[in-house]
Each structure stands twice: as C-alpha cells, then as structure tokens.
C-alpha cells in the first residue's frame, strides 16, 4: 500500500479542533437557539468532539444530532452496490434555529447539497453554516463553501484525502495519497 503524506499530525490535529471550537465560541456565543448536526458516518466523528468540547467551554447542553444523507444522494446507484445507510439521530426540529453542519472533508460539495436537502425534513432552519476539517478547494461541482475549516488542501483530482480517527484507526491524522487506495 502506498504511504500517505501527513498533512496534519496528532498534536496539530488536536490544536486545529481546539482552534475551531474557540472560533465558534467567538461567533456563536452560548449556542442558544442553535444546534450542531454531524453528517453520517464520518462527519459525526468530528462533530462528536466539537460538540463535547463546546459543551465544556459553554458550560451548558447544546442540541446535537446526526444526519444520514444516503436517501437524499444523487448517486445512490453505485456500481459496487448500494450505499449503506446510517441512523438519523435528530430528536428535535431545526425550524428557525441556527444550524452548524459538520463534515470531515469538503470536496465536490454534493454531500453538503444532499445534507441541506435532508435537513429540510427536520424543519426550516433559520440559518445554516458549514464546518469541515479539510477543504479541498479544487474541483467543486456546486457553489458551496465552508464557513469554518481546519486546513485547506490543494490537490489533483485523482489525489485522495484520508482523515484517520483515534476511535477507529488508532491515530488522529490527515493523510494525502496520490490516488485512492
């Protein structure tokens, strides 16, 4: 297997999440009438951490949900079989709330487009902002940009960004590969 180039190692990974949390604190205050929604499956690994840390910093509960977008995707008919759905865990309505949408990597923008459509099933949000850990700026298919990002990555289309998580892979890091392994 090809070795990936490390874009973010463990200490900087932690620092980046900490920085994002403080940035949110500055802009969103105490998160009253606001909620955090992570996109299943990988965005929720990031949103779990951000949500937990923000609750510590704010000192109160922040509404938090997990959104699955499988049934809203425009590409669910894949050659290697259907996409596996994950559970939706949103036990509140987002109507008139400010929503922070969280995913790990922003690339073509299609996932976010589907997430915005899926979010409508839970009401009409007052406003939605987007946070991603890695923003691949090139080859966007849709006019979608993040409001908060950990790092920006300028890479060729065939390159592949892998975010590894302590909970699953035993390490917190972001790796860049020349092509999809």
């Amino acid at each position, binding site marked *: 297997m090809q070795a990936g180039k490390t874009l973010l190692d463990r200490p900087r990974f932690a620092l980046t999440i900490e920085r994002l949390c403080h940035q949110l604190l500055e802009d969103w205050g105490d998160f009253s009438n606001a909620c955090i929604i992570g996109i299943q499956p990988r965005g929720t690994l990031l949103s779990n951490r951000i949500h937990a840390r923000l609750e510590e910093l704010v000192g109160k509960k922040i509404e938090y949900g997990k959104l*699955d977008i*499988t*049934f*809203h995707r425009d590409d*669910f*008919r*894949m050659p290697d*079989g*259907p*996409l*596996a*759905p*994950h*559970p*939706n865990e949103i036990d509140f*309505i987002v109507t008139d709330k400010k929503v922070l949408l969280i995913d790990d990597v922003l690339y073509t923008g299609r996932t976010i487009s589907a997430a915005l*459509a*899926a979010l*409508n*099933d*839970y*009401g009409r949000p007052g406003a939605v902002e987007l946070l991603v850990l890695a923003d691949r700026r090139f080859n966007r298919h849709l006019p979608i940009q993040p409001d908060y990002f950990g790092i920006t990555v300028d890479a060729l289309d065939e390159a592949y960004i892998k975010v590894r998580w302590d909970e699953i892979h035993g390490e917190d890091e972001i790796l860049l590969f020349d092509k999809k392994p």
Partner: protein
Amino acid sequence: MKGLSTRHLIGIKNITEDDIHLIFETADNFKEVINRPIKKVPSLRDITVANLFFESSTRTRVSFELAERRLSADTVNFAASSSSVSKGETLLDTVNNILAMKVDMVVMRHPAPGACVYLSSRIPANIINAGDGTHEHPTQALLDAFSIRERLGEVAGKKIAIIGDILHSRVALSNVFCLLKLGAKVRVCGPPTLIPKHYKDLGVEISHDVRDTLRWCDVANVLRIQLERQDIKFFPSLREYHQYFGITRQMLLELDREIVVMHPGPINRGVEISSDAADGPHNIILQQVENGVAVRMAVLYLLAAGN
C-alpha cells in the same frame, strides 16, 4: 456495500440469508424515516413503478403504494377487474403495453403461481412478487420476520408456529423459507387436510394439536382460512374449525409464558382467532402492518440501487 444478489424479488426461495439481513438493516433506516414528521425521501424520484394487481388486495397494495410514494417514485395502479384483461388480453401483452410507457419496476399480484417468474424472464423491468397464487408472498414473509426480530431481538433459534390453512397459503410457504434461512425452528399446525404432505421435506415440524403447538412456540403466526380458494370442503364447518384450531385469549392466558401472536390479515374474527385474542396484548398485528411499509421501501430501494 454489497447489494442484493438478485434483480427481482420473486420469492424467498431465490434469495440468500445475506439478502434478508441487508433488507432488514435498510428497513431499520426506513422505519425511522416513516416515523418522522416528514415521511418522505427522494431516492426513487426518477423511477416509475407499476402496481399490477390481478387479484384483490387492500393491505399489500396500500403498503406498496405508500412505500413507493415515500421514496418519491411515480406510481401507476392497475386492477385487473377494470382493465383490458377482462377483454381477453394476455398477461405478457398487458405488461408489455404498460412497460412501453417507460415503467422501471413492476409490483405484481397474480392468481397463477409462477406468473412473476414467467414475466421476469421476458421483460427488462425489476419484478416484485406481491403474491402469486398459492406459491409465495415474499414481502409478507420479510415483514413477519422483521417484526419478530424487532420484538424478540433476533429470529435465529426462536420457535415459530404457523397455524391455519397452510395448503392455500403463499404466506406460509414464504415464511417457512425465510424463517429457516434465518435459523429459526418452524412448526406448521392445522387440520391434516390443510397441511400439504411435502411440508415435512422443507425441514419443518408438523402438528395437528394447536394447544401443544402454543406451548411449544415463542411466536404464533395465525393464518386465515382461505375459503375463496377452497373448492371442496376441507373441514366440516367454520364453527368446528374454530373449536379445534381457533386461538382464543383463554388459551393464551393458560400458557406458562407470554408468546407473540401475529396475523398477516385480513382476520376472520371468530374463525382462526377470536376477537379477544386478536385485540389482546400479545399481538403485534398492527406493528406488522407498519413494518410492511418500511420493509417494502427497503426492497424497492435495494432493487433500484442494483440497476
């Protein structure tokens, strides 16, 4: 994710255990969808489904239609009684004419066993069997097993009794295939005239003693006496049938543990099951109906994903 091993859902006999688990896992997600305030997702918005019902149906037709609409598919409904079938058109001609209008999937109920297999080898659309004569009714078996899994945690190792008119029941045959594939122990129970001899070759127990069967089982799936398919008398009278094979609340209360009572509907109250048992706390009959929509959404979604 691996998809289904088949392009059509003709019967449980033709699908694998992995297929069944995949349908259940997908149905779990759809169950959550249909319990939301907005019960709709856009997955099948580019798909047109024809519901061809050559035999009467309420539950299955409504359930399929709801499943299709909740996936945003376009639907056309067809009932044999009000169509050119009554003018002598053949099944293949009828279906080909409907397919010429660019239909992607066909849900079909037909009185002739094998009608779906016949069509599946002749037309390009995905076919879902919604009951073919006395042969199979795969989505009913899937939703029954899904409901058992939901209530008892798993199907494997559980003792399931299918009680009633086994001879004329496509639900019984599909249930037997499905439950055995999932590792359950299955017993069929009814009068000797209503249990075909070949059932013992399927790997199920056969009993003619309903009280003993209730003591044995974790789940009793009670089937309707299909009088419309009985051209000769298989038992002396409905009253006598109820006396020997009908399930009553009293019989359930006399058991030393609680069992789950299921019925695929429509219920003949006072024949195979008494009203107090059909409405009692043991039954999951309405959960079966709710799960039917989720399971059918999963089947439609997975078959469409395979195209």
